[in-house]
């Protein structure tokens, strides 16, 4: 077990290292002259050179990469020359906003999807099972911004409830913020429900089929107790992995939803950074998205191995 966790952590660090190089190459090396990109083709060479030495982009690439990575490790993300703000502030604010939206969406979708998946598994093969499974998958297949458009047309425009923008006025309390965030959160519910429900369903079916469940039934335990005590607990394991892989998408990947609902999350911040060629924000923000994903999947893997029912429940019963 310890060996598995150690290997897993080591692999994540290697992956992170490769990711940082990929991000650096894509955002620093390929676009070419940084100052020229900021100042445009009409600027004279002298001011381009001056800005480059100001930004430190006239140094060798290895030095720049080393500077960036060591800066990150010591908590220094640098400053955005274009926005005249520290990268930490720009990214920090947007990450908090992204996390709020992700949290609200997860709070709605996780219990709902698990309930749906477990219910579908208990009714396996019936019309209800197929409705949940196929409905969930179809909802997932529809692009997120199509849901955004549909929800805006139906609710604020058609029925006059909820808001077409997700940014609450400054100083709003939690309930007001939730009211503004509810539509983008519902979009995410549509996108995620199918994935999570499918995993919960598969997990439940497997647990229903397992020896410990059969033993519990033969022991004469009532069905409700069997489901609650033996099946449910184990069926939730595979869903952990799905939730973990989706966190990376929720923090940073929601560019389109955040744009449509005009919400200042990480996705919108990265989009704007890419448009303005604001490299410091872009490369650190993108790396952060990757880190969130890697940490979340790592945590899920470790949790999964610790909670593995075949190890734990096998010895219990």
């Amino acid at each position, binding site marked *: 077990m310890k060996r598995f966790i150690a290997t897993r952590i080591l692999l994540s660090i290697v992956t992170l290292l490769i990711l940082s190089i990929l991000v650096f190459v894509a955002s620093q*090396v*390929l676009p070419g002259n940084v100052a020229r990109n900021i100042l445009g083709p009409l600027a004279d060479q002298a001011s381009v050179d001056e800005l480059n030495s100001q930004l430190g982009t006239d140094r060798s690439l290895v030095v720049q990469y080393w500077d960036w990575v060591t800066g990150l490790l010591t908590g220094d993300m640098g400053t955005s020359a274009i926005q005249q703000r520290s990268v930490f502030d720009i990214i920090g604010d947007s990450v908090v906003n992204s996390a709020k939206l992700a949290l609200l969406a997860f709070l709605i979708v996780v219990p709902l999807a698990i309930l749906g998946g477990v219910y579908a598994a208990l009714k396996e093969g019936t019309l209800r099972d197929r409705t949940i499974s196929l409905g969930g998958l179809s909802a997932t297949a529809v692009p997120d911004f199509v849901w955004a458009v549909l929800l805006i047309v139906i609710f604020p425009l058609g029925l006059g409830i909820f808001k077409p923008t997700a940014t609450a006025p400054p100083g709003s309390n939690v309930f007001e913020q939730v009211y503004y965030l509810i539509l983008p959160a519902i979009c995410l519910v549509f996108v995620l429900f199918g994935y999570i429900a499918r995993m919960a369903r598969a997990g439940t079916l497997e647990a229903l089929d397992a020896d410990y469940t059969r033993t519990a039934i033969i022991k004469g335990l009532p069905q409700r107790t069997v489901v609650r005590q033996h099946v449910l607990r184990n069926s939730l394991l595979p869903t952990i992995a799905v939730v973990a892989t989706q966190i990376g998408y929720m923090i940073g990947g929601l560019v389109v939803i955040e744009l*449509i609902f005009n919400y200042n999350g990480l996705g919108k911040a990265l989009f704007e950074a890419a448009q303005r060629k604001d490299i410091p924000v872009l490369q650190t923000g993108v790396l952060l998205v*990757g880190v969130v994903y890697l940490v979340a999947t790592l945590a899920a893997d470790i949790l999964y191995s610790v909670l593995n029912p075949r190890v734990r429940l096998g010895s219990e019963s």
Partner: protein
Amino acid sequence: MTASTSDLPGADPILAGAVRPDTTSTEERAAQRERLRLLLRSKVFVVGALIVLVWVVCAIFGNAIAPNDPFATDPLKDLTSPNGTYPFGTDRVGRDVLSRVIVGARDILIVAPIATILATVFGTALGLVTGYFRGAVDNMLSRFIDAFLALPTVIIGLLAIVSLGPSRWTVILVIALVFAPIIARTVRAAVLQEREMEYVSAAQLRNERTTYILFAEILPNVMGPVMVEFTVRLGYAIFTVATLSFLGFGIQPPAPDWGLQVFEHYGLISGGYWWPVLFPALAIATLVIGVNMMADGIAKAFER
């Protein structure tokens, strides 16, 4: 409603037989006919194929079908709500939304399949190599794949736009790059099973070249998963093309691309002008769902 097709008695042995190399070509052809029969009996596949067919017809004959010129602007009629003359209304410069939706099928139906084909070819090759060699090559490539998969597609698109600039080819490249590792994983898993088969050791004993073993011996036997991956990825590719052109990365104005139309008008939606956004969005949704239904049917037909 889809489960029934794969449960047909007698379907499984034929399908299973088709993927072993020792079967004769007549048996193989019979299996292919059987698979086609299964596909055509699957309601999900047929409905999906019909939806896709409608959009393919629009893509090919769009200019003839469209009631109006999709590029003709009319400042006097901008943002007219849907009515008899303009069933889908007009956009912000008075262009007919219905005509633009019809003609807009072309771009996405060219870009998405090209990108998916590239991704499938590259991913399959990668999967064959990593699955067959395992060891160091596999480990190294797997780390790269992991690094790539840590980022959402949109974010890779953002990076690509900065490094390569906006164009159709950037979109194709991004999709090929992102999807290839995913396809490679599936193919790799299939190859790991195949490489233990006797026909592979036989080929090795015959001293066949590695490329021959990979592409002539193993590849035909993993074509099932490859086909399924291709159709599934095609659905995602359409989704991704639409997203990237929404972000202004791919096809440039005044092209009647669906994602671009949504992008050009989403700011107006809170003002009540929903039609120039809703109809292209629905077009994207129906095409994605159609392709996914086809993918579902194909996956069921290839299931062993």
